[in-house]
């Protein structure tokens, strides 16, 4: 029997066998650390190394140091056999982490038959491990034993040290919230859920296999922009130590739950498999493959520096992405989050991306019958087939075969798009888009991306398009003539497209000039167009026949200044219509007169010489004139003369009679609601009904 003893020791733990490589994984270090600590106890109480019963022993170690861990203020107090034991560690360092005041108490501590045994123990590490029950058994001769930890929240940790040197660690219902105390980077995400798993460390610590699963997992960063709920993950990783690094091969399957990784909302169903090499300084990803709905394959390989984390080299490739599936899920939230429900994708895409030293250096995208369409405005492009290469340090050539497109009811035919791309700029020498029987030709377009968006300029030419085809295509009454344009000054800036030049339309045997065209906020709720319009010598006979407005022979000129369309509806203009100068037949049919009356509403128009109206089909006139200044939904009308504006009873002359029988039309309503006027016009055209003339 030895008397009670107290020993003070400073142990500098020698690298008696190569432990440097053990730093690679905590599991492996602890696998060796645990028996070593237990051996220290034995050595302390049995200086000879043989186990002998002692009444009570107290061991105080100032420190135990190892490159991977250190223990400070170690105090081991063991009572008589079958009595209690207490181990206290004032400070524990493991890698970069430091903990204080670890306590292990065994209410039943046994040293017998060459084994150490602790039953009904309690382990406590403030802030990390709340008191858990512990039981252990260790045979120093065979270097085998077991350790069991149980928490009051049904968590379990079982460690089995086999005599051959193998270690099995089994984890049950481990709380991820409590585990976060061990991992500061995980703690920031506020994790929750339970983990069940098993780790097998082969004899010699040269091979490792980890399997496990997370149930009801969740996490959320403080902003809620990285968060997941009801997560189910399954993990299976095998690793082998080779040349100081772990070669691994594993899979991670996401089997339940959903995540929001701003701005993407993702649901379970993905599976990642990876092969690579892990060392304390580097992660070499030889091959990673992600199985995800919508992609035929998603693969990556690369090299990462881990201290600090940095992408040294990374190559990503995706094959046969179904854009109808992945577009709404991944593309729209990234490139047009404000229009998530209004963008539709189709076709397939394959792509490759290379990152070197943390920067994207190359992107290659191949489109296969891809299409893109917006609901509002109703525009679309596709199918598009071709390649889009991009390099950070050199110009590349984009070549796309565009099968067609549409803008509202107007269909664009197929064309080739060739563009040069360099860094943040795109240039197109010439782009010729067939539109019906003509062409829209864009020349010398150069665009650059700056901090507010795309800006640049070029020129536009519209080669003659048949008005018959155009009006039919867009659902207007058929008109004859042609539309063409020479707009050499195309300027584009964020929210604005300006066109210097003129759009010319030959129609109704006359022509229209549209100048100072400006399209603003084309894709927003306030899409609007500015233009100046000048019309000359329009044949009223053709015009009124086209719109079924009765019959008027003669010609008119029109000027529309400051025309503004918001969402393609006129909201502001100053327009005037006059008979064209010259000598030509001027007749107006009874129906046209009646329709003019119907447009003005009750009492709005008076037809002089009314008594003759019923006797003749048509009347002579010498001049027609009408003007409307539209502002705030109200059209301020006047005619050939303004009349006496101060006298409400005074009208303004719209048609001045001439010839036999002659007819004058006077308007009285100087302020007309624009929408109401349009409704009446629509009704007149649709029904062509004859209003009652008193």
């Amino acid at each position, binding site marked *: 029997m030895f008397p009670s003893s107290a020993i003070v020791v400073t142990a500098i733990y020698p690298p008696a066998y190569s432990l440097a490589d053990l730093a690679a994984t905590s599991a492996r270090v602890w696998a060796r650390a645990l028996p070593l600590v237990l051996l220290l106890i034995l050595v302390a109480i049995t200086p000879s190394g043989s186990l002998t019963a002692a009444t009570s022993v107290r061991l105080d170690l100032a420190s135990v140091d190892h490159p991977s861990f250190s223990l400070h203020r170690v105090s081991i107090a063991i009572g008589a056999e079958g009595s209690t034991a207490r181990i206290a560690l004032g400070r524990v360092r493991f890698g970069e982490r430091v903990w204080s005041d670890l306590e292990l108490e065994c209410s039943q501590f046994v040293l017998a038959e060459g084994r150490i045994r602790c039953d009904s123990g309690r382990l406590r590490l403030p802030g990390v491990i709340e008191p858990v029950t512990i039981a252990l058994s260790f045979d120093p001769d065979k270097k085998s034993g077991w350790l069991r930890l149980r928490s009051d929240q049904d968590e379990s940790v079982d460690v089995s040290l086999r005599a051959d040197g193998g270690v099995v660690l089994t984890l049950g219902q481990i709380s991820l919230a409590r585990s976060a105390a061990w991992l500061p980077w995980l703690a920031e995400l506020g994790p929750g859920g339970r983990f069940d798993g098993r780790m097998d460390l082969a004899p010699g610590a040269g091979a490792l296999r980890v399997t496990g699963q997370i149930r009801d997992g969740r996490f*959320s960063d*403080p*902003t*809620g*922009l990285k*968060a*997941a*709920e009801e997560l189910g993950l399954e993990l299976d990783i095998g690793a082998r130590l080779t040349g100081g690094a772990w070669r691994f091969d594993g899979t991670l399957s996401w089997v339940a739950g*959903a*995540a*929001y990784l*701003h*701005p*993407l*909302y993702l649901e379970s169903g993905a599976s990642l498999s990876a092969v690579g090499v892990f060392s304390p300084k580097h992660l070499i990803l030889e091959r990673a493959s992600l199985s995800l709905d919508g992609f035929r394959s998603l693969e990556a390989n690369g090299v990462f520096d881990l201290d600090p984390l940095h992408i040294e080299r990374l190559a990503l490739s995706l094959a046969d992405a179904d854009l109808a599936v992945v577009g709404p899920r991944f593309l729209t*939230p990234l490139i047009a*989050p*404000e*229009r*998530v*429900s209004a963008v539709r994708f189709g076709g397939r895409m394959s792509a490759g991306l290379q990152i070197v030293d943390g920067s994207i250096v190359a992107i290659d995208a191949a489109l296969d019958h891809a299409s893109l369409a917006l609901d509002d405005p109703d525009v679309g492009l596709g199918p598009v087939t071709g390649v889009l290469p991009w390099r950070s340090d050199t110009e590349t050539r984009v070549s796309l075969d565009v099968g067609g497109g549409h803008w509202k009811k107007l269909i664009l035919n197929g064309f080739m798009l060739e563009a040069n791309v360099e860094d943040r700029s795109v240039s197109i020498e010439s782009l010729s888009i067939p539109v019906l029987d003509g062409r829209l030709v864009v020349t010398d377009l150069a665009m650059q991306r700056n901090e507010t968006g795309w800006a640049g300029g070029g020129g536009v030419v519209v080669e003659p398009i048949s008005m018959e085809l155009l009006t039919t295509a867009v659902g207007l009454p058929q008109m004859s003539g042609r539309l063409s344009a020479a707009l050499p000054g195309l300027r584009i800036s*964020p*929210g*604005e497209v300006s066109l210097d030049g003129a759009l010319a339309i030959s129609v109704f045997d006359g022509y229209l000039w549209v100048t100072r065209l400006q399209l*603003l*906020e084309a894709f*927003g*709720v*306030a899409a*609007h167009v500015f233009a100046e319009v000048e019309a000359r010598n329009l044949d009223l006979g053709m015009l009124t026949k086209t719109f079924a407005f009765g019959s008027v022979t003669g010609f008119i000129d029109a000027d529309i200044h400051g025309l*503004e369309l*918001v*969402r393609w509806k006129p*909201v*502001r203009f100053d327009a005037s219509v006059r008979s064209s100068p010259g000598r030509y037949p001027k007749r107006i049919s009874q129906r046209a007169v009646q329709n003019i009356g119907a447009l003005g509403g009750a009492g709005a128009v008076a037809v002089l010489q009314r008594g003759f109206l019923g006797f003749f089909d048509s009347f002579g006139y010498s001049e027609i004139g009408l003007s409307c200044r539209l502002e705030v939904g109200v059209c301020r009308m006047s005619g050939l003369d303004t009349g006496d504006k101060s006298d409400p009873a005074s009208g303004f002359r719209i048609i001045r009679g001439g010839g036999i029988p002659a007819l004058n039309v006077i308007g009285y309503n100087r302020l007309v609601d624009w929408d109401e006027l349009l409704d009446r016009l629509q009704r007149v055209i649709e029904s062509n009904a004859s209003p009652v003339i008193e």
Partner: protein
Amino acid sequence: MRVAIVLRAVCLMLWVSMAGLVQAQGNLEINTPAIAALQGSMQQRHAQLGPLYASGAVGIANDGTISLRDANSVPLAQRAQVNSLVAAENADRAALYREIARANGHPEWEGDVRRTFAQRWIDRAQPGWWVQGAGGWVQK
């Protein structure tokens, strides 16, 4: 040297006074059909944004935009929709600033209009809403 300093000071005063003149000439209350359309769109959206301001999920940023600053109060499955709502509001706001600058005949004033509106949104935020100050987000 002294002359150069005086000249520089005079130039600076001139620039400051002209900048003030430019500011003074700008009409932030100007109305056009496009501005009315944008305001209508934003007003309609406000019915959805109001509860998000009140919960703190969405805050008023100091650059004239709004921001999804604390999504924790929004159910996970709805966060993408809320982000879309925020993006749509920001698109309208950007168009509004451009349009007001254009309506004033000075498209180049967009930045000034944005800054002025940013402060105006913050000043008009209701008590309890979160706004972004120089030091970060604060609750009014």
